[in-house]
C-alpha cells in the first residue's frame, strides 16, 4: 500500500509542480503586465520601427525600401564620423580626469567624515540635480564675452582681443561644464562603495604604520575596481550621447550640425527632414552603446538572478 502511494506521488509530483509553475507564471505576468505594456509600446516597438525606417529611402513624405543602403551611406559619410570627435575627446580626457578627481574626493570625504564631510558631499552633488539645459544656460552665459566675469580679468592681463566663447575653446569649455556637473555625483557613488569596505581590510596596514593615502591606493582602490569600471562605462555612454550642453552653447556660438552624434541625428531629422537616415544613425548609436554596456549588463544580471543582494547605498 505504501509502495503504491509512493509510486503515485512520484508520478504525480512532476505534474503537480508544473501546475504550480503555471499558476505562478499567470500571477507573475499579471504583476508584470503594466510594465510590459509600456515597455513594449514605448521601447521595443520604437526600436523595431527604427529598424524598419532605417531600411527605407525617403524624399519628403515618399518612402521606399532600399535595404542596407542607408548604412552603407553612413559608413562613407565623413560628417557622421567627424561627429565623434567631441565624444572621443570627452572619453579620453574628461572621463579619466573626472574618475581620478572623484576618487581623490571620495577619499577626502572619508578622511573628513567628522570634519564637515557631509556638507561637502552635499555641495559637490548639487550640480547633478539641476537640468543639463540650465547648466548649459548658466555656463554659456558665464563664458559669453558680453557677460563673463572672466572678461575683465582677461582684459587686464592683456588678452582683450581673444574671445572666450570661440569655437576652438569649446572642448575646454565643455570639459569645465561636464566636470562641474558630474564629478560630485561620481565621487558620491565611489564614496558609497568606499564606506562599504569592511574595516578589517585596512586595520592591519594601519597597525603596520601605513599612511592614509598608502591604504587608500594600495588596499582600497583595488577593491573599488568594479564600481570604477562601471562608472567608466556609464560615462563613456554619456560622452557618446552628449547633446544638451552643446545645444545651449549653440545659442551663442555657431556650431556645425554634426558637432556631436546626437546633434547630427537631431539635425538630420528635423532640420533636413532625413528621417530614415537619422533613424539608421540612431540605431548605430544604440548598437555602440549596447556593446559598451555589455560588461555592466552581464554583472547586473548575474547579481540579481543568483539572488545575491546588491549593496544599495
Amino acid at each position, binding site marked *: 500500500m505504501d509502495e503504491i502511494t509512493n509510486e503515485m506521488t512520484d508520478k504525480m509530483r512532476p505534474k503537480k509542480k508544473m501546475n504550480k509553475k503555471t499558476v505562478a507564471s499567470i500571477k507573475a505576468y499579471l504583476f508584470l503586465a503594466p510594465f510590459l505594456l509600456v515597455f513594449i509600446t514605448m521601447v521595443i516597438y520604437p*526600436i523595431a520601427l527604427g529598424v524598419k525606417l532605417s531600411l527605407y529611402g525617403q524624399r519628403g513624405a515618399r518612402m521606399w525600401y532600399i535595404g542596407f543602403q542607408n548604412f552603407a551611406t553612413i559608413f562613407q559619410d565623413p560628417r557622421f564620423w567627424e561627429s565623434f570627435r567631441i565624444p572621443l575627446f570627452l572619453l579620453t580626457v574628461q572621463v579619466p580626469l573626472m574618475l581620478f578627481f572623484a576618487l581623490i574626493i571620495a577619499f577626502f570625504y572619508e578622511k573628513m567624515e567628522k570634519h564637515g564631510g557631509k556638507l561637502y558631499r552635499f*555641495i559637490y552633488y548639487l550640480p547633478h*540635480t539641476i537640468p543639463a539645459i540650465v547648466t548649459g544656460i548658466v555656463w554659456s552665459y558665464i563664458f559669453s564675452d558680453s557677460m563673463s566675469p572672466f572678461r575683465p580679468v582677461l582684459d587686464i592681463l592683456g588678452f582683450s582681443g581673444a574671445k572666450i566663447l570661440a569655437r576652438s575653446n569649446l572642448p575646454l569649455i565643455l570639459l569645465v561644464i561636464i566636470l562641474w556637473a558630474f564629478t560630485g555625483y561620481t565621487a558620491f557613488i565611489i564614496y558609497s562603495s568606499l564606506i562599504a569596505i569592511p574595516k578589517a581590510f585596512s586595520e592591519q596596514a594601519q597597525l603596520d604604520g601605513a599612511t592614509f593615502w598608502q591604504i587608500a591606493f594600495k588596499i582600497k582602490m583595488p577593491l573599488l575596481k568594479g564600481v570604477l569600471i562601471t562608472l567608466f562605462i556609464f560615462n563613456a555612454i554619456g560622452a557618446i550621447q552628449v547633446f544638451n550642453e552643446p545645444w545651449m552653447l549653440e545659442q551663442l556660438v555657431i556650431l556645425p550640425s554634426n558637432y556631436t552624434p546626437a546633434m547630427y541625428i537631431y539635425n538630420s531629422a528635423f532640420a533636413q527632414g532625413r528621417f530614415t537616415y537619422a533613424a539608421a544613425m*540612431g540605431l548605430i548609436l544604440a548598437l555602440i552603446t549596447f556593446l559598451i554596456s555589455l560588461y555592466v549588463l552581464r554583472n547586473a544580471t548575474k547579481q540579481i538572478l543568483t539572488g545575491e543582494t546588491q549593496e544599495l547605498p
Partner: protein
Amino acid sequence: MRKHILTRLILLILAVYFIFPFYWLIIGTTKNVSQLFQKSLLPGIPNNFLENVRGIFTYQNGVFFQWLANSFLYAGLGAFIAIFIACMAGYAFRRYDFYGKKVLFVLVLGFAMVPIYATTLPLFMLFRDLKLIDTKFAVLLPSFVHVFSVYLMVAYWNQVPEEIFDAAQIDGANDLLIFFKIGLPNIIPGFITLFMLAFVGIWNNFFLPLVVINSRVNMPLVLGITTITDPQGFPVYNLTLTSSFFTILPLLIMFIVLQKYFRPQLYTGR
C-alpha cells in the same frame, strides 16, 4: 594636523567651483540686461529681482505658470506611474518562479541603456500617426517606462525577507493583498528614493519634449525657458536666467526636504 589644513583648503577651493555658477545665477536674477553686461560679481544695484520676476510671470500672458504646471504634471505623474509599474514588476521577479523569467530579465536590462536618441525619432513618427504629437500624452507615455527602476526594485524586493511573505501566505492572504498590505510598506523608502530619481530625470528631460512638443502651452519648464525672446526674436538674458532659477528651485527644495531618502544610484538612465 597640517595635512588636514591642506585637505580643507582643497575641499574649499573645489566648493567654490561647484557653488560659483549657482551664485552667479542668483546674482544674475537681480540684474537687468545692461547690469548683466557690466560683468560684476555683485548683485545688481538697483536690485531688479522683483522686476525680473514680474517679467517672467507676465511674459506671454503668464505662460510660465503653464510650463511650471506641465513640469509638475509630467514629472509627478510620470515618475509615480513609472515607479509603481516598476515596483509591481520587481515584485513579480522577486516572488515567482515563472516561465521566461531569465530571458525577460536579460531582455529588460538589455534595453535599459538604449539611447533616447535612437527611440525618440521613431516615437515621433508613431505619435504623429496616432495624432498625439504636441499633446501632453507625447511626453507622459514615454515617461512611464523607467527600466533601471525595475532592476533596482528587484534589488529592493530581494531585501525583504522570505518569511514575511510565507507567513502571510499561510494566513491565507491572496497575492494582491500580500503585495499591497505586506510588501509595499517594506518597499516605501526604496519607492520614494526611486520616485525622486525618476522625478528629477523627467523634470530635466529636454530632448523628448523638444522633439514631440511644438506649442508653448504644452512645454515643460526646461523647454519653455529656452524659447523666451523679445518681440523681435532676440534672447532676453535676464528673463532666461530668472526663469532658470525658478526651474531648479523646486528640485533644490525637494532635494533638501527629502534628503534622507535621497540616495544617488549607480544605475540611472531611463
